[in-house]
């Protein structure tokens, strides 16, 4: 079975983000980029699927040359080969999905794994868009997955509980924390990844439908308030939660 994982290359969540001088992009100076954390879960699920069913895991990323670092990391974890769909310019989520859909079609992949969200733009949308473009079934935010032949049984997190879904291949799965525990890229895997190929091609041309007008940092959080330290503070706390915070 051909298995594809789509990965984004994102600023490390530990880096301090600074808005660039154009007020539209982040200042990439001194920012370390890593494999999107949710995509690590996607890679792990793809590898587990391969280990159970056999097949080939291909890692695909849309973006500039640097995205190869994240592809390489996925290869070090155990994926078989990589494809970089090259684009040095800004591309919105629809554009990313278009490029991915075209490649997935060419690969004739039966199952495609995504992260549930890319921690850079946080749109949580590329997986679903890609599924729609391909006409594949889609399970988003999966926390459990079972494959039995063509049949898929998956669980999703929903407000206050879990939803169990049955569907079939071909399908797109977007992965949520809890689905698995991603393995480390063992050092031997890192060395082996050096010998695996990353094919480069231009990403399918696409017009952006979204324009970023401005980027700004959220206002600093107001400091918390300590209302009191014993039960006598409860009425005041309830009043504040009702009237100021308006959460109850």
């Amino acid at each position, binding site marked *: 079975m051909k298995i594809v994982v789509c990965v984004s290359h994102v600023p490390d969540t530990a880096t301090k983000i600074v808005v660039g001088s154009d007020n539209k992009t982040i200042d990439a100076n001194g920012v370390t980029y890593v494999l999107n954390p949710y995509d690590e879960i996607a890679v792990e699920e793809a590898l587990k699927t391969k280990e159970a069913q056999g097949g080939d895991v291909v890692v695909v990323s849309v973006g500039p040359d640097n995205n190869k*670092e994240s592809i390489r990391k996925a290869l070090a974890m155990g994926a078989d080969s990589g494809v970089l769909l090259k684009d040095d310019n800004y591309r919105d989520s629809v554009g990313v999905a278009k490029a991915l859909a075209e490649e997935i079609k060419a690969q004739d992949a039966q199952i495609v794994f995504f992260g549930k969200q890319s921690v850079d733009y946080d749109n949580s949308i590329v997986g679903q868009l890609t599924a729609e473009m391909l006409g594949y079934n889609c399970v988003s935010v999966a926390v459990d997955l079972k494959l039995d032949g063509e049949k898929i049984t998956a669980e999703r997190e929903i407000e206050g509980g879990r939803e169990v879904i049955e569907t079939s291949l071909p399908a797109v799965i977007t992965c949520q924390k809890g689905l698995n525990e991603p393995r*480390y890229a*063992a*050092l031997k*895997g*890192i*060395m082996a990844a050096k010998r695996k190929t990353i094919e480069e091609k231009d990403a399918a041309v696409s017009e952006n439908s979204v324009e970023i007008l401005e980027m700004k940092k959220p206002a600093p959080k107001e400091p918390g308030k300590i209302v009191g330290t014993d039960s006598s503070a409860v009425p005041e706390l309830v009043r504040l939660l009702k009237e100021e915070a308006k959460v109850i």
Partner: protein
Amino acid sequence: MDFNLSEVQNLIRQTVRDFAENEIRPIAAKLDEEEKFSVELTKRMGDLGLFGMHVSEEYGGGGMDILSYVIAVEELARIDGSQAATLAAHNSLGIGPLYYYGTEEQKHKYLPRLCTGEYLWSFGLTEPNAGSDSRGSKTTAVKDGNDWVINGSKIFITNGSADISLGCTVQAVSADNGGDKKFTTIIVENDTPGFTAKTMHGKLMWRGSNTSELYFDNCRVPGENLLGEIGEGSHIMLKTLDNGRLSIGAMGLGCAQGAYELALKYSKERKQFGKPISKFQAIAFKLADMATKIELARNLLYKACWLCQTGQKFSKEAAMAKLYCSEIAKEVADEAVQIHGGYGLMKEFEVERFYRDQRLLQIGEGTSEIQKIVISRHIGC
């Protein structure tokens, strides 16, 4: 000049950092408190591929360059000196002499098991009366028929007496013609009759690492356990120490980096006189000095690794890197405690462990004074 690390080196740093943060950090304080060497954690470091990183794949190693290995030690030391010590001693001092001086048979016999984390190997040079002056060794090896018979003792030997210690490379005096001593290195497996390994307790630092005394009482090993040539022992041990200095340097660098990061974070959180203490110039300048020293240390150490990897002479730079990295580890850890104020003296705060762990670095594998002797010889004093 290209200061960029390769993609592989960057990935190794990322992986080892994640492993150290997730698997070692949560238990480091407990292992330190209980003075406990963890077989289980050692095995997991082995599964990650840390042991025998620089050994060729033919013997079960990782086939990586020296800098990759040094980066791995640095990343472990950034979180925990003890685990970094287990790795650095095993790879540089344990595996090193077997790999560089062993016969094909010896290499195939030992290295595959030593590259998995299943077993550890130690390096027995230091004796109660022979520390800096290793030529003061009193342990003897006498040829009896085809066998070597060893008598004497060693002290402070890392990885010598853990449950998974497989053996030791021992330096012994094989001939003494009126003070003109010949040294020979011999492989001794831990289960050899006449050999006893005893764990040393009560350490200030590296409490999660195994340190031992070794005793040889008519300990008899077959002639094929000779490592290298008869009389070549001193040369083998000194060459091994050249390599070892790179990994001790990495421990100093990683320790400094870890202590600095803790101090920087704390200084931004701790408020006094109405503002974070990082806003006081006296504190900010300390942090600036720490960051500068770390940058210098890293450049020097990585250059020594590059010299070693490209087959150039590196023993002067290795001594400089060992000296500088371990000295700044002391300075940085000291200032990091200062920035933590009273909390820095409490075990609840990680920086306290860094302050203790750095103290071995100016002593082990050649004291700072001995490094200066080495450097001064190189510059022609």
